[in-house]
């Protein structure tokens, strides 16, 4: 009886782990799409309304869900203190605070941080080029994330269940 219960627990736990790791790919895709949406909003705020960067970032926060929106808001708050060296350091600080909750890869974060290096310091044309480049890179990252999602989600779920089942069989 106890043995049976233990096996069920092991199979259940490893299946949940499999689902968790599988979902990480889903979360990455979702965060990348939120980031892409955020950059589109930022682009239009800069291009059409010429909003100041802290205001534009707050607008992005309003339009983006989850952690990505929060990162933009935190960066805006840091900019409003007028104490930070530049926009890049505000975003670095903002991302570092939430890094543990993010599913983005190091290369995704690289795309994110790269465009913040000259954010606010160039003219409108410069921003268009810079944000355009970031959007191109993000599109590729999204494509990559979609491929990984197709390949890996099912694999991790099956793997989780199979691992639990294997341990259960050994224990029997």
């Amino acid at each position, binding site marked *: 009886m106890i043995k049976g219960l233990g096996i069920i627990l092991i199979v259940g736990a490893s299946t949940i782990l499999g689902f968790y790791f599988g979902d990480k790919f889903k979360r990455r895709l979702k965060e990348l799409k939120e980031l892409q949406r955020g950059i589109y909003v930022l682009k239009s705020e800069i291009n059409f309304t010429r*909003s100041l960067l802290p205001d534009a970032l707050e607008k992005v926060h309003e339009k983006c869900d989850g952690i990505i929106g929060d990162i933009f808001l935190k960066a805006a708050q840091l900019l409003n203190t007028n104490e930070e060296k530049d926009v890049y350091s505000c975003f670095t600080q903002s991302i570092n605070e939430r890094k543990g909750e993010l599913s983005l890869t190091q290369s995704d974060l690289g795309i994110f941080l790269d465009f913040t290096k000259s954010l606010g310091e160039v003219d409108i044309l410069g921003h268009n080029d810079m944000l355009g480049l970031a959007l191109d890179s993000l599109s590729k990252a999204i494509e990559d994330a979609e491929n990984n999602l197709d390949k890996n989600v099912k694999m991790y779920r099956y793997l989780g269940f199979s691992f639990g089942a294997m341990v259960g069989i050994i224990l029997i």
Partner: protein
Amino acid sequence: MITREVLDILPETIKKEVTGNSYSEKIQEIRIKVNKPLIFVGNNGEIKTNYISKLDDVKNIIQRISSYSIYAFEEELRQGYITIQGGHRVGICGTCVLDGQTMKTIKNISSLNIRVAKDIKGCADFILPRIVKDDNVQNTIIISPPKCGKTTLLRDLARQISNGKGSKLTGKNLTIVDERSEIAACYRGAPQMDVGVRTDVLDNCPKSEGIIMAIRSMGPQVIICDEIGTYKDMDSIVAALNSGVNVITTIHGFNEEDLFKRPVFKEIIENKVFKKAVILSNRRGIGTVEYIYDFTNGKIERAVEL
């Protein structure tokens, strides 16, 4: 007087210099140049401090005044200044970048001049009754050399005409066409100076276009603008008069003769567009009213210090 808005844009090093001395109340200008001593200008001349400004100080100030958004100030940079909250103006110098013959932006910013804005309420008390007749504001031109208080006077006139002055003058709908954001000192479109309750401000708008826009859209009774001098400005002033709108404006000069000498003013002088000219100087301090000239009869009314 140095206000919180000015202190907020200064890096700690310069802030210490400003606040840590006895003359901070009298500072009118803060001049910052890379690798040069920090200079304060007050009523009684300048004070050179021992602090040598650094490139980082200038960069830091630019970041703060633009809220890290230099793209949003392209037009202001083209004109060489940015107005900050409180109406204070930061003049900017560096390498000018040209696009053909037109100025595109300023790069390698190396010096800044922070001019502290101030309202002098009541400085138009002497002039106002002399340019108002039967509850109507007469077309008036203020003539003075630079730094004699033209804009300050214009601002107080706007405030008093807009608010009204008891039974002698009912409040008028007034539009300020503020081409260089000096009169109302707008920050994000909102006047930072008290320019009256019935005043609309077209900020950063060319005078010739602004006057016509105001007539079409805001229905003003009085239009105020600063430093006219082109044929297009004259055309728009005539258009305002034809629409029954009165105009108060300024030019650089020493007296009414400067108006007569310049061909651009020939038509408006011949047509007696302006009724009064107020001549300012700084002979007895900024804002000295030398006299008021009446174009209709050529009479001069001598005045006292503002």
